[in-house]
């Protein structure tokens, strides 16, 4: 993985000292909260329901054991012994003290991490496929391109005050594991008819109060022009994006209102202008980055393992992904124990995952946008030993992509923007289905819960989505069906009137029963929904 050079380290260290001074001046009363707020937000420090919250960037979700150990130490030293992995592959701490934030950032910098650009109207952490560099189905490892974009977008003076926040995802497989088309810019690394590698650009996607699927605006950009094309996309947005209304300020609104064709025309015009100036980074820079993401020293070994233990066999079946080396798999550590808080991990669990990464996965981990952790390179011969240790630590839940693998935002339990709680719903739904024994029968079923319209819980993209709303001071939940964040991307549709907490849990069971009664061979919930439509589900829910 990428290693900071002296320039990177100096930049982060300097920023830590700068923030330490800003926080000191705030505590001394030399600057007001109005003056301080944009400064702390630029360093990922929010003020949430119970305390300050710090969001730490994990570039494209990749980190090493030392970094995971450091995140665990921070949880113990500065927080209350745990952290929350987020839907953008980052981690958040919920109980941070302003007077300690500078020391915390200094500890992060020691392991080449920071919280810069995890808030504010700038280009946020670049996200990617959590199986990048390991997946059997990928064209190339997308992370060198994500890293190039990370370096380009960090402290980019032109894009520090955009109309609104800006999120970019990069993938390099036909299977979309990064919700690529629900980002402001989604980039898919592709090969053209001539066998050349380049980038396909999708612009103007997003969730939030106005969900949009990004249209493709360019099917192939040569690799050495990747950054320039991204810059052209940003320039047109920066020039015409609305700054008068934050609810209409995201690029998806601009692309929608301007029209994808006109937006594309303007991007192409800007792109042509920029190409004439020769500002694109040299190909040598990509070549410099690529070795950081070189394959570890894989060793040929067994290609299968003993599946006679049914619990182990189930975990292997659900929680591993095909690897490009046939003696390895990528193993998913579920942070969704039945009744647990999705994405939360204790410091002890983080230390264990770091140790397991060192022992079994070439010291590398990934954070999934679905709030789980990946060990990307596990030898098949080591799988049983790994699973045994995960089981013993309560991290062996075999539930990837099942109805128990629920995405849930922090909701009203932690977030000052939320209207309703998300986590208790996730806990109760996973308990309900684990107790009923239907989880396996239901197969792949992605359930996503947001506590407000900002959609951090990706409810628009859930096969089943739940949105918490405030109905005259009482929590109420809207149910939606048919969404997908994957290559079969779709936006979920609302079923009808909302439910109270108990009602929406019953409603989830009702729609799964409709699915089980109507499905044909091999159909997932989403397939059945698409075939039979909303009506049978609505009838079961409301008639």
């Amino acid at each position, binding site marked *: 993985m990428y290693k900071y050079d002296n320039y990177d380290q100096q930049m982060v260290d300097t920023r830590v000292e700068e923030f330490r001074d800003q926080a000191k001046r705030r505590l001394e009363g030399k600057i007001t*909260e109005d003056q301080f707020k944009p400064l702390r937000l630029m360093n990922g420090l929010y003020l949430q*329901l119970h*305390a300050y919250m710090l969001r730490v960037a994990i570039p494209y979700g990749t980190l090493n054991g030392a970094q995971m150990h450091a995140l665990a130490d921070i949880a113990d030293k500065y927080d209350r012994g745990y952290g929350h992995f987020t839907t953008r592959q980052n981690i958040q701490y919920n*109980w941070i003290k302003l007077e300690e934030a500078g020391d915390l950032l200094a500890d992060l910098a020691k392991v080449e991490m920071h919280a810069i650009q995890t808030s504010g109207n700038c280009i946020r952490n670049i996200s990617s496929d959590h199986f990048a560099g390991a997946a059997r189905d990928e064209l190339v490892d997308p992370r060198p391109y994500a890293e190039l974009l990370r370096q380009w977008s960090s402290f980019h003076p032109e894009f520090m005050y955009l109309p609104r926040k800006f999120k970019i995802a990069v993938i390099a497989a036909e299977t979309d594991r990064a919700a690529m088309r629900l980002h402001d810019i989604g980039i898919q690394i592709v090969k053209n008819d001539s066998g050349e590698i380049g980038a396909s650009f999708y612009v103007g996607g997003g969730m939030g109060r106005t969900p949009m699927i990004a249209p493709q605006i360019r099917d192939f950009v040569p690799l050495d022009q990747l950054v320039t094309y991204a810059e052209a996309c940003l320039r047109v947005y920066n020039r015409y994006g609305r700054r008068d209304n934050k609810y209409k300020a995201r690029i998806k609104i601009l692309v929608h209102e301007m029209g994808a064709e006109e937006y594309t025309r303007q991007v192409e015009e800007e792109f042509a202008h920029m190409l004439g100036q020769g500002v694109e980074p040299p190909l040598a820079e990509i070549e410099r980055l690529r070795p950081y993401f070189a394959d570890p020293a894989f060793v040929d070994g067994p290609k299968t393992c003993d599946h006679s233990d049914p619990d182990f066999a189930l975990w292997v079946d659900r929680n591993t992904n095909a690897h490009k080396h046939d003696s390895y798999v990528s193993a998913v550590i579920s942070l969704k124990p039945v009744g647990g808080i999705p994405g939360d991990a204790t410091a002890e669990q983080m230390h264990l995952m770091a140790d397991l990464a060192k022992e079994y996965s070439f010291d590398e981990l990934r954070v999934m946008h679905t709030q789980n952790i990946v060990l990307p390179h596990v030898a098949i011969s080591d799988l049983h030993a790994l699973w045994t240790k995960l089981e013993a630590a309560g991290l062996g839940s075999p539930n990837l992509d099942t109805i128990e693998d629920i995405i849930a935002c922090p909701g009203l339990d932690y977030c000052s923007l939320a209207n309703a*709680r998300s986590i208790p719903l996730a806990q109760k739904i996973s308990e309900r289905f684990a107790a009923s024994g239907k989880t396996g029968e239901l197969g792949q079923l992605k359930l996503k819960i947001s506590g407000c319209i900002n959609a951090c819980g990706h409810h628009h993209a859930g096969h089943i989505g739940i949105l918490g709303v405030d109905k005259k001071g009482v929590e109420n939940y809207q149910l939606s069906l048919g969404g997908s964040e994957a290559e079969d991307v779709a936006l979920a549709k609302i079923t009808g009137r909302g439910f109270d907490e108990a009602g929406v849990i019953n409603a989830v069971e009702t729609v799964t029963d409709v699915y089980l009664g109507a499905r044909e061979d091999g159909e997932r919930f989403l397939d059945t929904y698409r075939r039979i439509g909303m009506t049978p589900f609505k009838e079961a829910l409301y008639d």
Partner: protein
Amino acid sequence: MKILTGNDLKSGAVVWWDGAGWSLHVNDAVDVGDDADTIAASEEAARRVNVPYAIEATRDDNGVRPAHIKDRVRALGPTVRPDLTLKPTQPEALDWIV
């Protein structure tokens, strides 16, 4: 009644105006009537509180209850982590929030 709340500047902890200073316990909150803005301005200027604001609440035999669920969550703590609330040994206290 109208009560005043905010966050402690240094720690970020949720605090409530008790008439003479800031308390961690909502039951200590007093009715600030029409003085909310005046108290908020002077306390914020003195850096004893961050982003204070007034909310509606009621008082009965069980104490002070903020009108909105969001402020009740702030007052007690996350409903999903009873161990991290102000009443870690009384998980049933979370019923008060909902």
